[in-house]
Structure formats: structure tokens, C-alpha cells
């Protein structure tokens, strides 16, 4: 997902306090920033929300790649609005993360140094315009699967950020599908381009949910804390069930020869993605890892003089105000 393979941190807290905390979560209460929370809960959430925020920010890059080359002015405006939304989503999430006692600049530094991760999906290249369709449809579609349940997560600021994000995310998926429809109904070359985008983004989208975690201790702890609501396999299954008919409507073929409707489980059987590839991408060896992080670092460094200028102006204005009083 946008946050993948989040390890839960253990806590050395007082067992009595831990039990009371768990009882609050079990009663469905929201945990708010100033309230007591186990150290492990706090640290795990910083990792998860931070990774989620980084994904929104880095996620602007593959799509930003096509803004200047959008086929029409309308598509350009739409893509621009979508990418701007991603920036907004990153900001909501950074704010939520900061309530846990980490600063914005610390989070940026950890992203730029590689100490914190972002979703594996953004390390794949966007080679054609159809990729803008595939990303909106599949990548944002997969994100929605995860984010809708997270609106009920136990940490108040995170849940509120998710509510805001989910309201806007549906536009992202629909604009992507609309691009796919246009291309699938276009010339044979355009349809082929749409098929090619689906071929390249299908398995990386399945990887977004992370490897099976039904047996994982981290997953069990995170689910008890309600910072993870469903297992990775549940969400992946739900995604496949919803997406396959949408591909059929487009007249495109999901690149999986083992894809079959299974009447017993009322869902599709499908092939697992290549998990070795997933771990390689996570380790930094994906097709675009260096390019993405390089672009982030450059944006941060190139903006330094501007941030300093704004700070200097603010200081000067403040001094003038004090002098006038």
C-alpha cells in the first residue's frame, strides 16, 4: 500500500497502562495527540503515516512527468489538479504525523537520506500517456481500498486526514478510468497503448498491498491497535474483484493466464506478483528509485534560497511591526 510492510515497534510500557490503552481502542475510542499512548504505538504510527505522506509527495513525480505533454488542454488541467491534490494529501499526512512529536524537516531528511520509505509503485517509469490512465485507475484504485477502512483508524489526526483524502481520491480514480476508456475506444494503436499500460502496472499494483501478512506478528499488533484494518490479502482480493470487470468493460486483458472466477469464494483466483522484484524495488533497486529520490533532493536543495528568503522577509516584517508599536 502507500505504507508497506510497517513493522510494529514493541513497547516497554507499564502492563496496566497498556491494558487500559487497548481497552480504549477496543471500545472504539479515538486516541488524540496529547493523550498517553504506548511508545511502540507512537513510533509505529510515525513510520506508517510518514511513509504514507512520502508516497503522496513522491507520487507526484511519475505523473508530473506528463503534465507538459498532456494530449489536450482539458487533460492537462485535470492532471495538474490531480497532482496538486497529491501535494495536499502529503501535507495533511505530514501534519498528522507531526502531532506524534516529529518535525516536518526531520521527516523530509529521513525521506531524502533513504531512512524512510515510500510506496514501491512510484519507482516504475511512466512511459506513455496511457500510464496516466493506468495510474489513476489502478494505483489510486488500490490506494482507495486501503484508505477507506483507515478512516476508522484509532489515531484521531490520521483518521481525519484519511476522511479528507478519501473525499478527493475518487476523482483521481475516475479521471484515470476516463483516460483508459478514451484510449481503449480509440485507434488500434491507442488501444494497444492502453493494454501495454495495464500489462506494466497490473503486478506492481498488486504489490502495493504488500506480501501476505496473515501470519505476521507486526500485522497482528497493528491490527489490535487499529492502525491496520484489513490483511494485505483481503485488500488485494477486494481490489482484483473490483478491477477485473472494469478491465473487461474496457475490452482489455488482465495479464494473468491463471485469472479465473472462483464461485466458492465468490472472488477471482489470480497469480501472485513477483515478490523478489518487490523486495528489490524496496531495497532501492527498482527502475526509477534513484531518479525519484534525486528529483526530491534537488527540489529541496534548489528551494533552499527561496525558503530562506521567505523567512528573512517574515523576520523583517515582524521587526518592523515591533518597532511601530
Amino acid at each position, binding site marked *: 500500500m502507500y505504507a508497506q510492510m510497517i513493522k510494529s515497534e514493541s513497547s516497554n510500557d507499564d502492563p496496566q497502562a497498556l491494558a487500559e490503552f487497548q481497552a480504549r481502542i477496543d471500545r472504539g475510542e479515538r486516541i488524540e495527540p496529547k493523550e498517553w499512548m504506548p511508545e511502540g504505538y507512537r513510533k509505529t504510527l510515525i513510520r506508517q503515516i510518514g511513509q504514507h505522506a512520502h508516497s503522496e509527495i513522491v507520487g507526484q513525480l511519475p505523473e508530473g512527468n506528463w503534465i507538459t505533454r498532456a494530449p489536450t488542454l482539458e487533460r492537462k488541467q485535470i492532471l495538474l489538479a490531480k497532482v496538486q491534490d497529491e501535494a495536499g494529501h502529503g501535507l495533511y499526512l505530514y*501534519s498528522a504525523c507531526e502531532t506524534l512529536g516529529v518535525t516536518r524537516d526531520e521527516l523530509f531528511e529521513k525521506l531524502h537520506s533513504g531512512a524512510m520509505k515510500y510506496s514501491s509503485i512510484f519507482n516504475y517509469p511512466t512511459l506513455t500517456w496511457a500510464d496516466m490512465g493506468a495510474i489513476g485507475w489502478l494505483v489510486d484504485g488500490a490506494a482507495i481500498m486501503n484508505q477507506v477502512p483507515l478512516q476508522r483508524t484509532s489515531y484521531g489526526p490520521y483518521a481525519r486526514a484519511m476522511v479528507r483524502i478519501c473525499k478527493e481520491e475518487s476523482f483521481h480514480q475516475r479521471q484515470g478510468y476516463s483516460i483508459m476508456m478514451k484510449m481503449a475506444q480509440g485507434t488500434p494503436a491507442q488501444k494497444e497503448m492502453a493494454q501495454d499500460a495495464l500489462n506494466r502496472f497490473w503486478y506492481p499494483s498488486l504489490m502495493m498491498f504488500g506480501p501476505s501478512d496473515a501470519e505476521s506478528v507486526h500485522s497482528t499488533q497493528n491490527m489490535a491497535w487499529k492502525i491496520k484494518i484489513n490483511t494485505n490479502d483481503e485488500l488485494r482480493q477486494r481490489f482484483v474483484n473490483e478491477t477485473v470487470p472494469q478491465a473487461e468493460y474496457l475490452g482489455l486483458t488482465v495479464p494473468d493466464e491463471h485469472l479465473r472466477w472462483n464461485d466458492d469464494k465468490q472472488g477471482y483466483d489470480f497469480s501472485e506478483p513477483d515478490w523478489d522484484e518487490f523486495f528489490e524495488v524496496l531495497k532501492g533497486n527498482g527502475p526509477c528509485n534513484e531518479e525519484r529520490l534525486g528529483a526530491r533532493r534537488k527540489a529541496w536543495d534548489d528551494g533552499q534560497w527561496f525558503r530562506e528568503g521567505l*523567512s528573512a522577509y517574515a523576520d523583517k516584517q515582524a521587526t518592523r511591526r515591533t518597532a511601530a508599536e
Partner: protein
Amino acid sequence: MSKKEWPLWEIFIRGQHGLNHRHVGSLHAPDAEMAINNARDVYTRRKEGVSIWVVPSSAITASSPSEKGPLFDPAEDKVYRHPTFYDIPDEVGHM
């Protein structure tokens, strides 16, 4: 100075229908003017508001979670503050 982080601002937006300004979130900005500019981009991309307030987060004093009991429990046994506490006979009509 280069390492100084921009202060945090709490953002309040009033929607179209004359309701109160409502807290929508927070953001970093070097000063109040930039905070308003940024709030416009971050929190009103879909006509969510017609007015923006920005307040330095450091200027907000919040009640402490441990005061929850003393502050809010006293309201619990005062059901007579609600109109539904009173039975008005049907013959009287709407009140």
C-alpha cells in the same frame, strides 16, 4: 537561520452557508500572509470556504486530557437542560 523551521499555523475555514469558522487542519508557513496563501491551496481547492483564519499553533491553549472528568462530567446529570426532558401534552401542539 537556514535551519529554522517555519512555525505551525492552525487553519479555520468558514463554508458558504454562514456557519462558524471550523478548524480544518494545520500547515507551516513563514508568516501569517503566507499561511493564508498556503491555506487557500491546501484546504479550499474545492470551494470549501469563503473565509480563512490562521492562528499560530503556539497561541492556542488547550485543555488537558486529564481534566476531562472535572471539566465535562458535571454536564452528565443535567438532562433537564434538554427540551426532550419535558413532556408536553399532545393537545398543546407543537412547542
